């Protein structure tokens, strides 16, 4: 059994074999593998006895359930109005310069993916950045770069 199959089965064991488990199972896969591979979605469909298109459709509905490969660290900068007014553009530009990637891309070493996100509920403390599930409110371009440098030093 592949690593993905083992992961999916463990998640299904934990959350149960019903349609209601679809979200927690998908979230569990993304937590481990950063994105939902074709293999992972097919396995989830098989385990929950629902159609593969349904799994894909559900995943495509949520920004956080990616269906394309992502880096080990997924950076998301909020692009919605409050964060926009608070200066999210300079943050994104700085990160893009530093990582040498555009929004939507992943660094060649597979470490970072730079994305934007819709409102993250931190509007009062924008601009806000997310690295995997860690939240960084009220960031500046410089702070953002420092934080990402910190991650770069981790393995």
């Amino acid at each position, binding site marked *: 059994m592949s690593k993905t199959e083992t992961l999916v089965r463990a998640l299904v064991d934990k959350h149960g074999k019903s349609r209601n488990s679809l979200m927690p199972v998908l979230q569990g896969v993304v937590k481990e593998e950063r994105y939902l591979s*074709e293999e992972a979605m097919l396995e989830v469909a098989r385990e929950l006895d629902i*159609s*593969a*298109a*349904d799994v*894909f*459709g*559900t995943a495509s509905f949520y920004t956080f359930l990616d269906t394309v490969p992502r880096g080990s660290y997924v950076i998301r900068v909020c692009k919605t109005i409050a964060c926009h007014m608070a200066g999210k553009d300079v943050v994104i530009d700085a990160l893009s310069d530093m990582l040498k990637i555009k929004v939507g891309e992943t660094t060649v070493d597979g470490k970072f993916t730079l994305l934007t996100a819709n409102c993250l509920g931190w509007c009062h403390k924008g601009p806000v950045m997310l690295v995997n599930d860690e939240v960084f409110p009220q960031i500046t371009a410089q702070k953002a770069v420092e934080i990402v440098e910190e991650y770069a030093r981790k393995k």
Partner: protein
Amino acid sequence: MSNYMVNLKINNIPVSVPEGSTIVQAANKLNFRIPTLCFHPDLSVAGNCRVCVVEITGARALAAACAMPVAEGMEVFTNSAKVRTARKHVIELLLSEHNADCTKCFKNGHCELQELAAEYRVGDHVFLDLVKASDKILDISSPSIQKDNSKCIRCQRCVRTCEELQAVGALAVACKGDHQRITTFMDKSLHNVVCTNCGQCINRCPTGALVERNYMEEVWDHINNPFKHVVVQTAPAVRIGLGEDLGLEPGHRVTGKLVSALKHIGFDSVLDTDFTADLTIMEEGTELLTRLKKAIVDKDETVTLPMTTSCSPGWIKFIEHTFPELLPNVSTCKSPQQMFGALAKTYYAQKKGLDPKNIVSVSIMPCTAKKFEANRPEMRASGYQDVDYVLTTRELAMMIKQAGIEFTKLDDMHYDSIMGEGTGAAVIFGATGGVMEAALRTAYEIVTGREVPFNNLNITPVRGMEGVREATITITGTRPEWSFLEGVEMKVAVAHGLVNAKELMTAVRDQKASYHFIEVMACPGGCLGGGGQPIPTSADIREKRAQAIYAEDEGLPIRKSHENPEVVQIYKDFLGEPLGHRSHALLHTHYKPRKRY
């Protein structure tokens, strides 16, 4: 529905309807038509298009009449100024995102969206035109089905059809907001996913987003080519459906006019799939009896029972994907269409002294999956592609109109010979339960020498529209060579619509049910409700078509497949015996597992 009646007023007129009725249903009772788009009588209610809005006194917002249940004392207005404006805006908004090139659209003249636009006389440029060139994602990967995203209004009737009626789930809603679209797993092409090509989604799509791949021009070209001998076969369900697309009410039998029309169009020989339906019964009946003998007398444990039918190509692709482990249960018989194709370029060619390479074999089918079937690599037994083109009932209706034929004024004509003779048993192939009934009429008589013990040959327990039906027939008074079947209770089951087939086959797989013989048709109602039949469809329309099928059967002089004189003749002149050497080569095949996921 409850017996409790609810009183309300629609447009100031009192009406009472059973509790749980929707406003649309109540309005229908008063003959007020409320337009709908995402609603379809065969499907669950989605309530997403808002075309059906009505005003309810005291309510803050307009309500969706297809979803809103009636309440005591409710006052509904279906045509107030507010309603009219809202409805018109809904249609205009739908069109602002719609690639409305009606004149080039396959659905032109048969489109629910177009009809609504015409009815409400929508103006130009009320809303910004949001159609982008990139919206045009045309998928023509499948030989059966064409999907054009730029024509889709996201009503999700197709998604519900594929899931609720067919248990396939090939289509799903992806993304949200203005990115929302109907797609397949990972946006793969329809040909590369679990789609069975059944066409049920086409029958329920209100626009041109899902239509059949059409081959009318190719067929016209061959008809106009003097060097080609173009033969055409017509499936049983075409003769009871075609009229609906040519101005007749559902349930009209038009067999004789169908034959005349095909001759007028210019086919060289107008023949009948009923002939090979009868032949299928000979082959499949013999196969069933052989399997039973091996299991009961020879105690051969490799024999797989229950045996299932194999004439529905949607069912075949479904089992390949969903129950590959049950493929040995499927009869090895090809479908009547493919038996016909294999014989047209061998037996027919020989008898007529034609070179098979100059024969073009066309079939008229109530089905879209038959287009896929004709293209299968398994279907080249004659040394050529056995069936060259498959047209739906709808495509034929269009060709009849193109040819300028006044269909309803045509005289009745008879099918040509050879391969034009069919019995009542073959006609009922077009209705769910029909193959079972036809097989029993013949098998019982082979085994006992007597007719099936049912009044006037009508095996009513296998008829009807129940999703899964079962029957038991006790075999008594067997002929000596079949004595091992004496007293055996033949257990049979019938399923139509793949959601019912899935239920039945799950029980078989899990050994929770045991049968000898199972008939499965992919489409609701059987072929009469096929994905290539006239649109619209509903339980009521399918019921009328079924009545027409059984009336056609009762009206025919011969109603048992083994009595078809052309069938008797082909065994004498060409095939030898059922399951014989030649039959094996031409009329039988095996299918391979496909990935479900």
